[in-house]
């Protein structure tokens, strides 16, 4: 029924593998970096907090595509020879981390003040309070937002094709340029993205309701 889509499906699925790998790298490292930065801002001094605020403000204010280009063109100037795929991955990690850091700050602030007072009353000091009381509760509050950020990141990996990294969207354009079957291919590719994203989307929605603590 869709001859072009059928014949190019293996090629597209190969692209999908690249999309999934890129997404996984970006989400995992972006989350680790973002949580680290968010926690640092919560325990650190004024200067550190201001630096983190600036980082979040800047990256949330510019398009991810611009960050990708910025990485792609500036890494060589710094003496780093990275291929487009790696350049995009690094740029996206820094970008996604800003969103995760913001969510982390929000989750830490969402732990009720009474929890801190109870911990202090037991004679806990700041570090222990962070480790034993605040972070375990904040991490739980963070799961749903991080899933939503991951969803955003997966969709944004398609922009890597604009910078020249080969993945699903790049593969789709190649096929369309060769065959002109724009409807079949792009609709098919939308379905492939949907299959990757939809489970995460459902999980995020289900967890948003389930994971809140009854204080």
């Amino acid at each position: 029924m869709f001859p072009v889509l059928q014949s190019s499906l293996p090629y597209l699925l190969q692209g999908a593998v690249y999309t999934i790998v890129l997404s996984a790298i970006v989400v995992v490292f972006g989350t680790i970096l973002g949580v680290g930065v968010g926690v640092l801002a919560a325990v650190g001094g004024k200067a550190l907090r201001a630096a983190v605020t600036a980082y979040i403000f800047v990256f949330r204010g510019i398009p991810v595509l611009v960050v990708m280009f910025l990485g792609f063109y500036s890494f060589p100037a710094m003496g780093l020879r990275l291929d487009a795929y790696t350049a995009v991955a690094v740029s996206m990690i820094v970008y996604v981390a800003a969103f995760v850091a913001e969510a982390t700050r929000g989750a830490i602030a969402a732990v009720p003040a009474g929890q801190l007072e109870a911990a202090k009353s037991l004679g806990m000091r700041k570090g222990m309070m962070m480790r034993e009381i605040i972070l375990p509760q904040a991490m739980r509050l963070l799961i749903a937002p991080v899933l939503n950020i991951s969803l955003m990141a997966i969709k944004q990996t398609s922009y890597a094709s604009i910078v020249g990294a080969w993945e699903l969207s790049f593969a789709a354009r190649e096929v369309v340029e060769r065959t002109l079957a724009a409807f079949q291919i792009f609709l098919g590719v939308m379905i492939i993205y949907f299959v990757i994203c939809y489970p995460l989307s459902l999980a995020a929605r289900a967890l948003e309701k389930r994971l809140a603590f009854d204080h």
Partner: protein
Amino acid sequence: MNPAADLASRGEEIVAINGLRKSFGAIEVLKGIDISVKRGEVVVVLGPSGSGKSTMLRCVNFLETFEQGAITVNGRPVGYKTTGGVRKPVSELENARLREHVGMVFQSYNLFPHRTVLQNVMMGPVKVKGMNAAKARDLAMRLLGKVGMDHKADAYPGRLSGGQQQRVAIARALAMEPSVMLFDEVTSALDPELVGEVLKVMRELAEEGMTMIVVTHEMGFARSVADRVIFMDGGVVVEAGPPADIMANPKTDRFRGFLSRHLSEDG
């Protein structure tokens, strides 16, 4: 502690509050408070909302800063040290050490929702005091038994009623083996039918000789358990004395008015 030392220490001052003043912005909420609590004494603090009684209590373990005056617990300064006439904040470590000796129970329980009942009670001894887990577990189970909550040791706080959570919170504070227990309106958030179970635990603690400062609206508890009642209003101590005296014969209009309003609803 040997009996002789125990006898010698009776009457020893545990909490001393002298000339305590505190403001929130331009509003002065504590206008010079002096209170002394001796070992084994149960002091109940009454007063209308906004009288400063909760703020006073929170100053005792330095959950609130204060501008003037001094508080000591077991002779240790709370929050500030004055050396050579200069008042300086003490270190975070010293505050933490002090709080190990002051148990606090809150109106909103504040149990840790990500830990079981048993883990909530064990947390202080294990993490703060460095007690080994087996010993802390025995201690926690004994205290949970005492507040009638040992059957829920493995439950998470979210599954418990308000009264049950508050009893666990009492056990958690007791697990630090504090010199004094502070109770901050601990029954105010409870459904009326759950108030009794919490008051019963507090009554038993008082009978065992625990030193307690209790901020509450429970007149019956004040009358039958307190060694001394303190009535606060407008940031000052208005009346103080044994409940049999001052609750039967209030000297000021303010306390008389307060009592008549609250005794009528207390029955």
